[in-house]
């Protein structure tokens, strides 16, 4: 059974593939975990990427991504299948991030986790902060810009932040975002406009 499933990193479903997903969803609803693994394989990168962009911590993003799929498994029996599965997953992901932020649990750093594993985590960057290090000046500026952007995004409401990230980091359409967040197109656009303005204000003095 598992061998007829698309491979890791399979592309996003096109209409024909969506039909196939419907078949697989029926099998998932019947309790077939192998069929569910197809969805994990197909969407785990996208879900992780969205979550990571929102939380900017790999350990949290990993844990939350797992939670998203476990929640999806629990709920899929009643999922109508009329929305795209991916849209539905995105909604679970956005809600999971929002709830995690509300709980404000202390974040366990990557290094601490590695220490717990006995893998010499002390040398790991505490937050995975990729930078452009071509020159020290550029590196400093890159860090500064990215910190400002992160602060600006963090200052948005969870919903506004999710909308902004889906549009500008994930290239989703306004309609897709509306479907995933559960608001109409006009609301999406107005959040986008306000979020962008706040972001610019945060970056203003970087010139």
């Amino acid at each position: 059974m598992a061998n007829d499933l698309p491979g890791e990193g399979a592309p996003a479903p096109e209409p024909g593939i969506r039909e196939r997903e419907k078949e697989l969803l029926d099998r998932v609803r019947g309790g077939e975990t192998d069929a569910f693994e197809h969805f994990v394989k197909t969407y785990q990168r996208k879900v992780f990427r969205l979550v990571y962009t929102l939380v900017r911590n790999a350990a949290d993003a990993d844990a939350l991504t797992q939670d998203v799929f476990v929640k999806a498994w629990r709920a899929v029996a009643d999922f109508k299948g009329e929305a795209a599965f991916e849209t539905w997953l995105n909604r679970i992901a956005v809600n999971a991030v929002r709830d995690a932020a509300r709980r404000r649990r202390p974040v366990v750093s990557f290094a601490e986790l590695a220490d717990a594993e006995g893998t010499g985590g002390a040398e790991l960057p505490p937050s995975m902060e990729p930078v452009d290090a071509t020159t020290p000046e550029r590196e400093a500026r890159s860090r500064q810009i990215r910190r400002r952007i992160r602060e600006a995004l963090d200052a948005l409401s969870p919903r506004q932040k999710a909308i902004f990230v889906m549009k500008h980091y994930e290239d989703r359409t306004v309609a897709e975002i509306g479907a995933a967040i559960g608001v109409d197109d006009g609301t999406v656009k107005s959040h986008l406009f306000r979020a962008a303005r706040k972001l610019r204000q945060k970056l203003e003095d970087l010139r």
Partner: protein
Amino acid sequence: MSGRHLTEDEVVNRVFPAQDGTAPIPIHQAVCPECQERVARLREAFLLDRGALTGVVESLPPEFWTAQRKAVMGRVSELAALEAEEKATPFPTRLTRSVLQRPALAFGSLAAALTLVAGLTVLRGGDDRPAEPEQTVAVAEGTAALSAADSADDELLRAVDVALTTESPYETVLPEAM
């Protein structure tokens, strides 16, 4: 020079359009180096951030994804088994919840991800590529039409969320001392 300089909001809208697709370039911006510079600066800052995030995700090794998937499927299989058991016996509902509230296997994925440091080193080498706008859009059918169907799913999700609100994804995994 044609017309006035772009307002701040117009600059923002050039880089972060609130609508789908790209708007035509205003004639003024096309000819005014100052406004071009203002738009370019904001765009560059954003692309720097977006490119860096993309770099992190792309540099995660295949082992990370495999471990993450195994962790998910481990929890799912356990849930499936418990659900089957619950159907047979009426009361141990609490067991199912305990599986939900512990992504303990995140450790597995993270162990694999330690090699990510190597990936980051590549990034530090100065590859400040802007993100390729990866086409992740999957919905070919009118998504707007789906929102009604979605609301039923939404109800369901809310129920799942409520069941999970009191649960922390982290606390059950880690010893208090950490």
